[in-house]
């Protein structure tokens, strides 16, 4: 088994692992082992990313709020989230009277599985993605909206009035904003002419869509940021939780690790929308290029794609965190007004403009 490791292109590595496994076992077993490896890698990645994002959010909000943030457990508090996790694991899972036990128990898993599945399609670098559908964007949108089922079930099965209101709000909110997310991604699909995520990234080799897509791409990016923040139930759109109104919304009755699942899923959804924004609008793992073949471009090419991808993703995540910690919360009717009266019409016009631009071949 020859390992050809290249930080700029992972397809050689994955192919050599595949070939090596096929040499020593039947193809069916090889695929099974590969799936197991991918699953394990994603589990570890998911856990580490969750820990990091929780820590990052606490540090970012501390920065905004004139505080220090966690700084006691470990150097600069980096072990704080692990301590929190241990606490959540050891907490009692409070059983509820008159709750629908089955639905109550599976709701957190539905939420977390939805966020888990979406990660699979995201291209982290050249050749580094679990599955590369030709309908990648469609898959991510479809899978990430499954989470709302879990939230609705959680609110319904807890048999609590606050939870039910939170779940209903969440249902109305996510289903409405799904439209804007889909339509804003559609503008770039029209530009790129493909729904395959790796294809969209490749189409940005000579410039990110936000730069070469004229104003419609910028408009779509802004709409995508707003709508995806709403879809992840984060502030200023955290109406489903709204701790000053509904105590904790749909997860009021959850405790211990079940609560941690909702909590983790929120952070992972944030990562997914940020990485989708990066992949579709900001060039994915493509480096920043200006002009053609100059020294600047060569230096940018030298930075590995993984650094580019995660760098851009964390910039977008920082933006989303900034929203949460500086804006007040919207009211439910204003939330729906924003979507149906402003974002959706703007989006539809935007798509028409994009279609026209593409038809006339006026884009770069």
């Amino acid at each position, binding site marked *: 088994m020859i390992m050809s490791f290249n930080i700029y292109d992972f397809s050689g590595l994955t192919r050599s692992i595949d070939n090596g496994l096929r040499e020593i076992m039947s193809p069916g077993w090889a695929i099974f082992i590969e799936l197991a490896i991918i699953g394990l890698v994603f589990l570890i990645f998911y856990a580490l990313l969750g820990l990091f994002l929780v820590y990052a959010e606490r540090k970012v909000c501390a920065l905004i709020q004139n505080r220090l943030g966690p700084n006691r457990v470990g150097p600069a508090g980096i072990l704080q989230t692990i301590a929190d996790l241990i606490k959540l694991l050891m907490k009692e899972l409070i059983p509820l009277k008159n709750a629908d036990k089955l639905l109550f128990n599976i709701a957190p898993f539905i939420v977390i599985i939805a966020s888990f599945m979406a990660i699979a399609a995201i291209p982290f670098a050249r050749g580094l993605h679990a599955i590369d559908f030709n309908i990648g964007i469609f898959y991510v949108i479809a899978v990430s909206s499954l989470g709302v089922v879990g939230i609705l079930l959680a609110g319904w099965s807890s048999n609590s009035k606050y939870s039910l209101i939170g779940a209903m709000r969440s249902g109305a909110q996510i289903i409405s904003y799904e439209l804007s997310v889909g339509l804003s991604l559609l503008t770039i699909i029209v530009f790129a002419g493909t729904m395959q995520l790796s294809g969209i990234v490749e189409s940005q080799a000579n410039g990110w869509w936000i730069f070469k897509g004229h104003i419609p791409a910028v408009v779509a990016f802004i709409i995508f940021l707003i709508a995806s923040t709403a879809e992840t139930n984060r502030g200023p759109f955290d109406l489903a939780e709204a701790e*000053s109104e509904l105590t904790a919304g749909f997860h009021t009755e959850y405790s211990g690790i079940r609560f941690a699942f909702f909590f983790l899923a929120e952070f992972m959804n944030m990562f997914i929308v940020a990485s989708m924004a990066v992949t579709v609008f900001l060039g994915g793992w493509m480096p920043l290029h200006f002009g053609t073949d100059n020294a600047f471009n060569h230096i940018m090419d030298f930075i590995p794609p993984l650094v580019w991808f995660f760098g851009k993703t964390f910039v977008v995540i920082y933006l989303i965190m900034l929203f949460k910690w500086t804006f007040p919360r919207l009211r439910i009717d*204003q939330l729906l007004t924003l979507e149906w009266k402003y974002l959706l019409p703007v989006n539809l016009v935007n798509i028409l403009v994009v279609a026209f631009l593409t038809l006339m071949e006026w884009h770069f």
Partner: protein
Amino acid sequence: MQEEVKNIILGEDEDYIINVGPQHPSTHGVLRFEVSLQGETIKKVVPHCGYIHRGIEKMCERDTYPQIIHLTDRMDYLSAHINNEAVCLCVEKALEVEVPEHVTYIRAMLDELTRIASHQLWWCAMGMDMGALTTFFYGLRDREQILDIFEESFGTRLIQSVNTPGGLMNDIHPGFQKRVKEFIKYFRKKLPEYDQLLTGNVIFRERTEGIAPMSREDAIQFGVTGPSGRASGFSCDIRKVDPYGIYPKIHFSEMLRTEGDTLSRYKVRIDEMYESMNILEQLVDNIPEGNFAVRMKAVLRLPAGEFYQRVETARGELGVFIVSDGNKTPYRMKFRSPNFSNLFVITKLAPGYKIADLIAISGSLDLVIPDIDR
């Protein structure tokens, strides 16, 4: 009668009733709103108070007048000094004691510092209620400066208990004036940040502008005083209407607005912070020399009769009514607390708006629950 009460509380059968409180993050204490909903829209609100009733008025009948002062701290703990002063002024009025001008200046300064500190905390909580979590830390950062001034002079931070019939327990720290001047300089720079963070925010504007307007008639009928009443154009600032202490000599304006909506209640308080700083600036350099207290008798016995004194706390009009039979303890004591009256106007304001608005309205009324129940 009982049937009627039951109907008011429970409403019709098909109503969706939720209890906001007594354990709820946005009631700032143990207050319970029984809210009957239609979807998200509020049909009826019934406030239930009494969860933190400690019988302060009854306890007053047992205590001597200097002891009573320390009970009043525990009503509206955010304007503790002003509550203390109300009892002191009432007792001094009954005994016909003239306190030195030195004391009246310091009392007024402490009043205004307390008012600013209270409004700062209100701003923190208002932002939190609206979902803007950062406001809390900005407000507390600035409030800390005032509490440090209190701590330096009197050793206590939240409730000072420095007032006593006839003056103060102890004089101010020599560095008091310098610290106050520093604070005014500091806070004049920081207060515009409040506007940048919250007042100018488009979401905040949408959530407050035109929401739950209170007419002047409503304000008067429900007895809503303080900034909430003044936002509806009800001129109720006791410092102007029925001046006490040093206030007749000070130039300041009463913050009046006419809209009466949530935003104007918000703005009145922001403006009051500026105005309080103006008052402090007039006082800080002019504190006359003198004793910090008049020598009083060891046991205070008020002459038999009825005595009333009202002051302007950070939340409205606080009235202290003493019925004395000539003993060292009052025969009956009654407090007209501002929050009790301010609370019940919510039954008129909230119906027709959303749950989120209920939280914003109760935030803009700036309720302190122990003052409601006493």
